[in-house]
């Protein structure tokens, strides 16, 4: 207090005015936007990105990889489907616990189906036609409401995907056999016709 009293009167007055100065300079009268662009800070919490390093994009943005298809992204496992033949008809079954009836000889792996289903997939079934005593493969439901034989063998895409192959089915007009294959050339043999894709693998 003694020190303040020793100060010149003018300085004391200046000190006494400090609260008023604060009041004046915090008022709207003197505030103005210092830039034409908004700089007002917000209380948005950015801590989640502060400690994260954003992966760099390639210099050539035209070379970005294509957005992967669900199939490529999901990478569902596949299981082999075995093919047997009795001289007239084919029989398709799982490698284990799904043996062909008597008289069919194993011809090895025919194709592989997806083990589980994703959106956009269709179930692949084995059907039985009692009139002709033939077995055949179909998608979703067995044609003509014929009996579904055994379990669902697996799954295939309903529509074509990147890098997918069609699961083809063609009809042998001589034997009434329905051949299911992923090799287009199989359906080009003499006597085979009506090739159609029942799914995509």
């Amino acid at each position, binding site marked *: 207090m003694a020190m303040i009293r020793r100060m010149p009167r*003018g300085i004391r*007055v*200046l000190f006494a*005015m400090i609260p*008023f*100065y604060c009041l*004046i*300079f915090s008022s709207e*009268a*003197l505030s*103005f*936007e*210092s*830039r*034409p*662009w*908004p*700089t*007002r*800070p*917000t209380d*948005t919490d*950015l801590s*989640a*990105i*502060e400690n*994260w390093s*954003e*992966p760099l*994009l*390639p*210099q*050539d*943005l*035209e070379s*970005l*990889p*294509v*957005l*992967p*298809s*669900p199939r490529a*992204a*999901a*990478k569902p496992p596949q299981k082999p489907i075995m093919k047997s033949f009795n001289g007239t008809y084919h029989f398709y079954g799982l490698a284990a616990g799904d043996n062909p009836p008597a008289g069919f000889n194993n011809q090895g792996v025919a194709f592989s189906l997806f083990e589980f289903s994703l*959106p956009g997939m269709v179930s692949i079934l084995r059907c039985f036609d009692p009139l002709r005593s033939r077995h055949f493969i179909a998608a979703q439901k067995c044609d003509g409401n014929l009996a579904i034989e055994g379990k669902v063998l697996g799954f295939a895409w309903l529509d074509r995907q990147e890098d997918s192959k069609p699961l083809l089915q063609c009809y042998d007009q001589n034997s009434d056999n329905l051949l299911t294959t992923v090799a287009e050339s199989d359906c080009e043999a003499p006597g085979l016709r009506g090739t159609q894709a029942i799914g995509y693998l």
Partner: protein
Amino acid sequence: MTSRKYFAHYCLVFVFLAVLVNGGCSRGKFRSALFAGSSAEKMENVAGAEKQSSKDPLVGDANAGPESCLIQEPTPKGRKKTNIEIRYSLEDLTGYSLEEAAMLLTPNPGSETFPSAAGPVPWDLEGLDKQIAFAEYVAIRLQRDDAFAKRYGLDPDRFSDSDVRPFVTRIALMFLGAAASEDLIESLFGEYDLEAPARKESFYRGVRASVFRLILDPHFLYEVETAEGRDAFWTARRLALVIWRSVPDRELLLKAASGAFESQDGMVSEIRRMIASPKSKRAFQSFVREWLAVDTLSNSQRSLEKYANFSSELLKEMETDYVSRVMETLYKQKGKASDLLKSEMTNAPQNLQGILGGERQSMTHVAEPSSLRKGILAHPALATLTSVGDEPNAVKRATYTLKRFLCIDLPPPPGGANVFKALDLGPSPTTRERFDVHSTNPSCASCHSVLDGVGLAMEQYDALGYFRSKYDSGREIDPSGSLAAYGKTISFSGVDELQTQLHSQLRDSIDRCLTRHIVEHSFRSTSSDVSKCEVDAIHDRASKGGIEDMLIQALLTPGFWAR
């Protein structure tokens, strides 16, 4: 007496500190500080003062800056982003090309014509339907993509429950440019059922739900503007939309949060960083495509009887070559629009070489007088774009050239404009004979006196850009013409002379025209909304630099932030 002394002290200290706090005795600033008027006036005065004090050579000390142009008060408004902005945003956020996925989006009426960004992009139910399909497409493809999850710091093969919240927060902040509310983040987090038996499958479902929700969020689909929403992150989002046509990256958001935009130097430094990114080149290339309307090139049809080499591959080569030549001159060499009139067509792709080399020689087609074709107006893409079927269209060629290179935008023709069809012009009239009709009709003459000369000069290129000296009828082509524009009249014969004359007499107008296009594009304004004053001021300040300086000047302009 005492109260008088106090009042005198009060006034003295007030004036002294007012000057001190505002950083000097700049007259504009002081005036602003003491007599703050309308926002526009504030911007004018303050920005004028910044101009004086800035150390950046780009800003300079020109007397007439864009700040002195009359600008409007900022008004809250919104704008749906264009399809290209949505696509680029997602490409940057995912690291994947979405060219194929973007086909799902309805073509934006706003992106069909140039300038694409002008005005609000309409939002209709069909568009919404497509938008949802697009969001679903992207979300389904990303849900099981471990690379996407890892991009945002989470490994789906080994993650703890505490990793999920930062992951969700991160994608929300990045997708929405820091506009994600805590409530939104909480609702997204609720999609991840970490107690489910199949924890990883549950995480994938959460990713799908989050991505789908974020792509359909108004802050992702719209350039949202509200009076209270204008903060530093809004500035960052606007910068990203103009410079990258995309969303802000992490660095830009952190800069915004750290107050980097408080100083002009900080702002310029950030703009320069953004321009140096490949995303800026991609954005400028998409501007060039819109400016030159190259997307319509792929719709061109020609009869194979007349053009045996016509194919979609040829059109693709034309398109690529046309855009890359413009990019080379304007972006890589930092040249000006008028430099395009002089650029040489070397290293043309294989299919184009036949056209440029004049290999289609016949009774009507001869070798071109000049051994090497030069200039953007002689590019086969321009000739093809401005033809209808197998026939070149002189009016289309002239309107294209005048609008895009000289900013002369003529109104559409009045009804019944094809008056020459009713007149007897004899068999196989030449374009010049048909155009002569215009001079007899005052309502035609007002526009065609500007158009015809340029259109006639381009007649020597056929519908695929081959050089020809005669029409199919065997009649000689007279490519002479004249153009009166911007107070000057130039005369020429053929495209080569037209370009030479434009370069020597109207170079400045052509360069200013490109500035206008870039400013309109950046401001998201129509030509009637951007004043000549603003364009000229930005052009003059950036005249020593290229596109980069032009963009910086446009972004420092109060008018940009007021729109």
